[in-house]
Structures are given as structure tokens and as C-alpha cells.
């Protein structure tokens, strides 16, 4: 078989893995948007913050160490212990829960019934605030994250494909784990929303606030819940991305890629977020591979947005959204 085909397959799989990340971030958006109509610009920063917190807890860093040292003239940085990854994960989930509660209590509780654009502005504020707090709490250095996910070439795939086709496919273990974890996460979320009391209440709120209230659903509770879930999804995205490229500011920028993903998948569709993320991931990698060299490369920066633009023109409701027909 021609080498070119295998290259393409590699690029395709590589794009799929990147797409998984986009999907995760987009999923966080959809959860919050569906239940509250808030377009959460801070979703990417939440992923960054979650990953920073996880590293901080694992390494036994003292939160706000710089601040404490500056005020008290001390020189503390670490507690001197290490927390194992699992425990740290649980603790970080606790932090994300607390964050969700605070976000609802301090910000959005006071903005009920406000225009979407105002809610959006509030999340921009939240993004910058959270970024600052993250730096202040855990320091602004680039952190390496290792929760024990194996990384590097998957030998089994490499050898098997080599024996069969005389060409060893290069697939990173991390990518495989990331995809499996993401798939499980999505299944759990779907199961949760379909089969649990809270999931049912969440769908009710997403559909009609007034009706939800009348059947005894607390909007406040559901909103805290979706922010928490979005926080967990952000944590998973943060772990995957952080393991791959280190926990650093650029992590929060994947949120910007989620925007075209949502245009493709529709803002309220969970399957849409998943499929949209994968299409953009694969699309931009294949495009760069096939067309990039002809037009000077760096197409990954804009490909997603152009694709989204095309969708806006020809299918504004997204892949899975229902066609909106104005009643006259």
C-alpha cells in the first residue's frame, strides 16, 4: 500500500484525537448553554484552572503562596507532601463544585432574566478573573502534569500494522486513553441526563423554566449542577491537554476553537458538540496536510472558522439543530 495512504490515516487519527478535546470543551459549553442560556466564554479558562489546581494539589503547593509571602514576609511554597493522583482528582472536583456554587451565588443569581449578551459579558469577566486567581493561587509557571496516563508510541499498534502492511502506524498512547476517557465521560453524562432524577430535572430546566418550577425543580440547584458538570468536563479536558503540552495559558485558548465547533454542532446539542468537535479536529488536520503546503501552511489557525462560516451561511441551525421557521 502506498505510504501516502498511511500518512493520511495517521493525520486522520491525529485529528480525531485533537477533535476529542474540542468536543469536550464544546460539551461544557452546551451543558451550561442549554440549561441557562449562558454562553460561557470562561469554559477554556475553567479547563486551565482545573488542571492548575490538580497539579497544585498533587505537588503539595501552598495556594496563594506568593500573596502570603508578600504579606507576611515568609518563604513558603510547598507543604512538603505529595498527593496521589486519584485523591488529588477528587479534591479538584471538590474545588470545581465550590467554583460552580460561587459562580451561581455571586454572579448569575443576580443576573436572572437578563439579556444573553449581558450574561455573556459576565462570563468574559469571569474568564479574566479566574485566570488571575489561578495564577495567584498556583503561580504562573508552566507546569508538567502526570497523572499516570501512559504516553508515547503504542508499540502494539505499531508492530501489528508493520507486520500486516509493512508500515507501522504511529499512535500515541495518551491519545488512545484520552479518547476512551472522553467516550466514557460522554456516556456517563448521557446516562445521567436520561435516567436520573437530576438529569430529568436538568432537561426540564433546559426546556422551559416556568414549567420546571411548577413541577418542583429549583433552577438555582440545576444551574449550580450544570456549572459543576461543566467544571468536571473542563477538568478532563485540562488533564488531557495538560499532559500533552503542559499546563499553561494556551490551554484556555482551545475554548476559542469550541466556538466553530458549536456553530457546526448547534449550541444545544450534546451529540452535535461531539461530532462537531471531531469534524473540526479531523478537518483542520487533513486540510493542513493536503492543502496546507500549497498555500503556505498554518491553515489550522483559520480553517475551523472558515468552515463555521460556511455552515452559518448554508445551515445556520448546525448539524443537529432543528430548522427554525419563523411563524407569521
Amino acid at each position, binding site marked *: 500500500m502506498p505510504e501516502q495512504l498511511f500518512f493520511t490515516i495517521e493525520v486522520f487519527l491525529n485529528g480525531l484525537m485533537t477533535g476529542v478535546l474540542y468536543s469536550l470543551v464544546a460539551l461544557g459549553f452546551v451543558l451550561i448553554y442549554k440549561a441557562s442560556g449562558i454562553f460561557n466564554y470562561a469554559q477554556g479558562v475553567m479547563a486551565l484552572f482545573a488542571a492548575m489546581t490538580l497539579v497544585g494539589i498533587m505537588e503539595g503547593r501552598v495556594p496563594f503562596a506568593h500573596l502570603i509571602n508578600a504579606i507576611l514576609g515568609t518563604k513558603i511554597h510547598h507543604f512538603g507532601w505529595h498527593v496521589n493522583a486519584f485523591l488529588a482528582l477528587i479534591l479538584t472536583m471538590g474545588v470545581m463544585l465550590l467554583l460552580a456554587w460561587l459562580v451561581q451565588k455571586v454572579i448569575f443569581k443576580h443576573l436572572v432574566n437578563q439579556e444573553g449578551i449581558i450574561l455573556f459579558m459576565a462570563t468574559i469577566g469571569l474568564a479574566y478573573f479566574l485566570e488571575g486567581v489561578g495564577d495567584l493561587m498556583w503561580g504562573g509557571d508552566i507546569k508538567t502534569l502526570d497523572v499516570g496516563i501512559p504516553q508515547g508510541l503504542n508499540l502494539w499498534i505499531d508492530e501489528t500494522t508493520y507486520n500486516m502492511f509493512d508500515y507501522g502506524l504511529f499512535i500515541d498512547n495518551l491519545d488512545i486513553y484520552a479518547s476512551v476517557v472522553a467516550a466514557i465521560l460522554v456516556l456517563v453524562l448521557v446516562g445521567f441526563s436520561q435516567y436520573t432524577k437530576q438529569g430529568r430535572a436538568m432537561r426540564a430546566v433546559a426546556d422551559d423554566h416556568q414549567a420546571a418550577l411548577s413541577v*418542583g425543580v429549583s433552577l438555582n440547584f440545576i444551574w449550580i449542577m450544570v456549572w459543576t458538570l461543566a467544571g468536571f468536563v473542563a477538568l478532563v479536558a485540562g488533564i488531557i491537554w495538560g499532559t500533552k503540552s503542559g499546563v499553561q495559558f494556551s490551554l484556555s485558548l482551545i475554548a476559542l476553537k469550541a466556538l466553530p465547533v458549536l456553530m457546526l454542532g448547534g449550541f444545544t446539542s450534546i451529540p452535535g458538540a461531539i461530532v462537531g468537535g471531531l469534524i473540526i479536529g479531523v478537518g483542520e488536520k487533513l486540510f493542513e496536510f493536503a492543502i496546507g503546503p500549497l498555500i503556505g501552511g498554518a491553515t489550522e489557525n483559520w480553517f475551523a472558522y472558515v468552515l463555521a462560516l460556511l455552515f452559518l451561511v448554508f445551515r445556520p441551525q448546525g448539524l443537529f439543530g432543528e430548522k427554525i421557521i419563523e411563524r407569521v
Partner: protein
Amino acid sequence: MSTTEGYMTADGRQIGGVVMEMKNITLKFGGVTAIEDISFDIHEGEIRAIIGPNGAGKSSMLNVISGFYVPQQGEVFFRGTKRAQLKPFEVARQGIARTFQNIALFEGMSVLDNVMTGRLTHMKAGIISQSLWRGSAEREEMANREICERVIDFLEIQSIRKTPVSRLPYGLKKRVELARALASEPKLLLLDEPMAGMNVEEKEDMSRFILDVNDEFGTTIALIEHDMGVVMDLSDRVVVMDYGKKIGDGTPNEVRNNQAVIDAYLGVSHD
């Protein structure tokens, strides 16, 4: 008539004591006084109607009872105890179900799913126990499902169980909304114009359902209705409102012969 004790209706049904009492309720929206110093009570097991011309404040009253509107003044007593200002979802959890004048259904869900949301206040299992004890969660789901199916049978909407609500005609939507409220097995059922916009046949069906609910489950019902004929047929006692004030309260016959009520309905000008 408004004793705290029960009473006997004309058709010989025994009505219980006061279950809900509104005392001196006043509700304002800016300069508009939607409800002005109104008091009335609802007895256990009765069908209580609230009538009055457009804009009289009937829906507002129902919204006060169900916690959607917060009155500036007045007290609400439910089952003998004074009620704190509750949020709508808290009122629902106390066993007060309602329908809306403009219908508030979950348009994206099927009829059955809509009715199932009526069981939310009864679902006990939390997230953790639901994932740990699948058995008990499944039993609970089955039990809830069964109650919903019974309500669906009762309201004769079996044939549309799986239909998305958004595809239903207006009259059936009203019925689904009633089904959802009934699924919660309410102690008090509030209906805001359950028959508005229906044709004669649909109205007759709905009247029959309301009477049957009251009769078979002993559910206390407060309803708003414009059609005087319907009110006369259905209700045990009637509150009449006009321009935010209470202008009459009594049995349908008493109310019908009340001069203030006649004036309001015939459109006699207010001073």
C-alpha cells in the same frame, strides 16, 4: 358558609375543613394594583372557582398561591400553618400543582416524559444511590411510570403517549398539562382557565375530567374560568373578582344573584 368546619354541598358531598386560606392579599405591579386586600379560603375536597372580567387579577391570585408572584401584603395559610414566602418550586414540593393560562409544557419532550416530570417531587433516589442501588432506583422508576400511565389512561391520552408535545393541538396540550399536574398527586390543584380556547366538545370532556378527578381522588381544586355556565356546573363555591377587588363569594347561585357581580359582568361602568 366560610366556617372552618366542613359543609355539605347541594348534591350531597361532604366537604372538609379549610386547607388554604388567603388573608388580606395585596399585590401591585408598579402603579397597577392587581389584587387589593382580598381574603378567601379553600376547603378540602371542594372545587373552588375564581371568576371575573379580563384583567380582574384572577391569574395573579393563582400566581400568589403558587409562589410565582410575591404579594406586598397579606398572609397565606396552608393546612393550618402560616406559610413563609416560598419559591414556586417549594410550593410545588408542598403538594400544590398548577397549570398555566398560556400553557407551559416541555415542548421538546414526549407526552409521557412531560407527565413523568410531574413525579419529580416524589422521586427520592439521589445521584449516588441511583448509581449504587440500581435495583431500588429501577423499582422507583417503575412505580412512577405506573402512576403516570394511570393518569394518562384517566385523561384518555394513551394514543399520544409518545408524541412530542410540540406537535399537539391546543386542546390536547391543555390536557397534557393537566396530566402532568395530576401525576404529582397534588393536595391542591390550581387550574388557570383549563377550558379556554376549546370547542364545546373539548370543554365537555375537560369538565368531566375535572369533576372525575375531584370525585375519584378527592383532590381539592381551585380553577379560573370565564364561561359562567361551566362555573355553575363545576364549582361548589365561587370567588368573584373585578379590578383587583373581591366583589362576591359564595355558592354559584348566591353569586349569580349578587348585584355587584351582575353589574361587573354586564359591564356597568365603574363610577
